[in-house]
């Protein structure tokens, strides 16, 4: 661990030690330069425009949504009454919404962990998991595996959902077909998506299946950025593959993992497409219902836009809290003072 740190620090120092010319201009020269047309047009196009678009299409709607969440707006009339925080009170006493929130929390805990662990394992195998003689390399044919495992990510989410819906079909589905042909007769008409005990797990599997390849590629890129000498040194010191992964790979691509965790978590807090495709109604006993689905039903089939806006606000706040938590955990576990290349 220590040797790793020193080494990396040296590398880092080297990179930042490039001398920037005119780094410290004399104080009297720090007057504002006249605004030329070039400068102004640059500001307008590259700063002003994006900012304006951001304010108009992201911030303003959000403020509006919060405003509507305090009303009883039906969504189809220009009129609405201010009812204060009543919608929020209703949400937190509504068992179905709480169930949906619970499911989202379940997803946010397990989806990123499972996806990241599996794709890390795969990434390690195809980059440094190869033979223990000669150069550090991945398994044989690793470039082939890399391409193949990226395939699912190129399929649109809705297509993935529909495809797996067919595979899970109790009577004509591929999965039960395989299981029964292996002699497991109890799966003859087993409803994977229709049974409370398996619906969520089956759904999670589909999402993980869809994303594993993408995160694998992300981690491969990260691992490729680590100098091969580090791995060689570890090998000479007698570290096995697991030890190398835990002590070298993971600490050095920590930032990538954090990013992956946040992205995957945000996906888990939404998850709308997968849930809608696999179990549009929320699954048996609402076991796969998520907040975004409930928001959609409330707004468009029940005509309660005020309440739906409140759900949107809760969803947004949950996302922010989640990102904050990931950063906090990373910091508490020493992420800020840890290594980077």
């Amino acid at each position, binding site marked *: 661990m220590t040797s790793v740190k020193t080494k990396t620090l040296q590398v880092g120092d080297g990179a930042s030690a490039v001398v920037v010319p005119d780094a410290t201009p004399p104080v009297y020269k720090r007057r504002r330069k006249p605004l030329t047309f070039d400068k102004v047009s640059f500001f307008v196009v590259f700063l002003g425009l994006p900012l304006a678009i951001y304010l108009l*299409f992201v911030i*303003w*709607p*959000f403020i*509006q*949504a*919060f405003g*509507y969440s305090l009303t*009883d*707006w*039906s*969504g*189809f*009339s*220009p*009129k609405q009454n201010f009812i204060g925080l009543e919608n929020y009170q209703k949400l937190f006493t509504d068992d*179905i919404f709480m169930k949906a929130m619970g499911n989202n929390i379940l997803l946010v805990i397990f989806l990123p962990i499972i996806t990241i662990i599996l794709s890390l394992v795969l990434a390690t195998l195809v980059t440094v998991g190869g033979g223990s003689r000669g150069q550090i390399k991945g398994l044989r044919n690793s470039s082939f595996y890399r391409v193949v495992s990226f395939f699912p990510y190129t399929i649109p*989410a*809705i297509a993935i*959902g529909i495809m797996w819906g067919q595979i*899970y*079909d*109790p*009577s*004509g589905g591929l999965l039960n077909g395989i299981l029964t042909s292996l002699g497991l007769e109890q799966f003859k*008409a*087993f*409803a*994977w*998506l*229709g*049974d*409370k005990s398996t619906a969520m797990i089956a759904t999670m599997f589909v999402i993980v299946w869809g994303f594993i390849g993408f995160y694998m590629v992300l981690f491969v890129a990260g691992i490729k950025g680590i100098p091969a000498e580090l791995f060689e040194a570890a090998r000479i010191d007698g570290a096995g593959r697991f030890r190398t992964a835990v002590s070298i790979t993971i600490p050095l691509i920590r930032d990538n993992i954090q990013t992956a965790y946040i992205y995957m978590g945000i996906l888990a807090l*939404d998850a*709308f*497409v997968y849930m*809608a*495709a696999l179990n*549009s*109604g929320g*699954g*048996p*006993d*609402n076991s796969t219902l998520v907040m*975004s689905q409930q*928001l*959609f*039903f409330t707004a*468009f*089939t*029940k*005509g*309660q*836009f*005020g*309440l*739906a*806006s409140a759900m*949107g606000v809760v969803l*947004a706040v949950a996302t922010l809290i989640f990102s904050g938590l990931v950063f906090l955990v990373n910091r508490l576990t020493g992420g800020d003072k840890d290594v980077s290349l």
Partner: protein
Amino acid sequence: MNIQQQSFARRGFLRGALAAAVLVPLAGSMASCAADGGGGTAGPTGTVSDTNPFGMADKSTVDAVIFKGGYGIDYVDFAGKAFENAHSGSTAKISPSTDIAQELQPRFVGGNPPDLIDNSGAKAIGFSTILAQLEDLTSVVNAKNLEGKVIKDTLYGGVLAPGTFEGKLAAMNYVLTVYAMWYSDALLKDNGWTVPKTWDELYVLGEQAKAKGKYLFVWGKEAATYYQEMAIASAIKEGGQDVRLGLENLKADCWSHPALQSVFTALEKIIKAGYFKPGGSGTQFTAAQAQWSNAQEALFYPSGSWIENEMKDQTKSGFQMTGAPVPSVTTSSKLPYASLHSAAGEPFVVPSQGKNVPGGKELLRVMLSKDAATNFAKTKLAPTIVKDTVPADGFGSTALVSQTKLLSDAGDNIYTWNFIDLYGTNKDQLVVWNTFLDGKSDVATLTSNLQEITDKIRNDSSVKKIEVK
């Protein structure tokens, strides 16, 4: 109606799901379309006459948005052409939509809704939310149709009821749907079986079917509430209008009515005996329906009369699809065995704020002409609310012939209910029914869960209740 909408949902499913995927992250911005609504623009008015009963201005344009589901929109195109012929210089602009609520929400809020809407499909606008903004269509039924007859005299009885809310005829439901227990006449005849008239007879038939390797019923996860429809229809037959009014008005303990309980118990007996094909709660409903209509793994399927059109491509040849009334509990039920759940669907509405309100009504009047209605029956194999448009051979469809027979057998004993549509509870009820049909709950759980859904609406002061008498 809601049940029907469910079955059409799959057509717009891909698009809907994709649109939703884009929309949900922007949950906030969805609401942002709401600005201060513009004031209503009164439509230009022309001279009122028998050929122009609503005083539509000459050479005006009618803007119609039609739900594009199982029936498509070509029947409105057909009426649009007739409209343009009747009023030269005027144009009917007919646009399809698979997602009425989402597409029209900004137009309603902006005070610029279309002149005529077919508010149907899984994503229809809940009626209680827009009721105040709709025209009363009584003037349309009082007007004369293109053939010179007063429209209300040409309609089937009771068809205006589902569109009437608190005394206002806010929606004109165009298509007549018959709810029944559908089966293959050929299959039953081949085995020497007859259609069971009570739940007990049904149970006995289940045993015989099982001996031949067939189930009584199949179900799909998105359509589990078809069995709720069946149960309510059978319970109303047993217990009379009390049952219906209790449910419609969201009464406490309405699901504990003895008639409903006896139907639930009969269903439970069939489920526990294994006469339902297992795995339905994980099966797409169209796949389940094909197991019935194509693979013939089950004998019966409760559904609306759209089932023939919907499964057209997946029905075994020589199937002879036929509808029967749902079974009664006892032979001494309050309403006769032949009484029927039938309702007009595809609700057409005319928003008061539209630019050409008379034009919207005029197009609707053209649709209710005998010519346009016959065209619909012929191309969609389903009757409209206009009488006498289906010939005796039902355009060659056994299902259509059986519908006409069911309707005439039932006479005045036709009933329907609205509470599921009105309060948008179908989704919550699906969950409960899937569990029940799976054999994972019992009558007591089913009852308390359904009651909970009803109670939640009743106790929610922000939901506008509509009293049914």
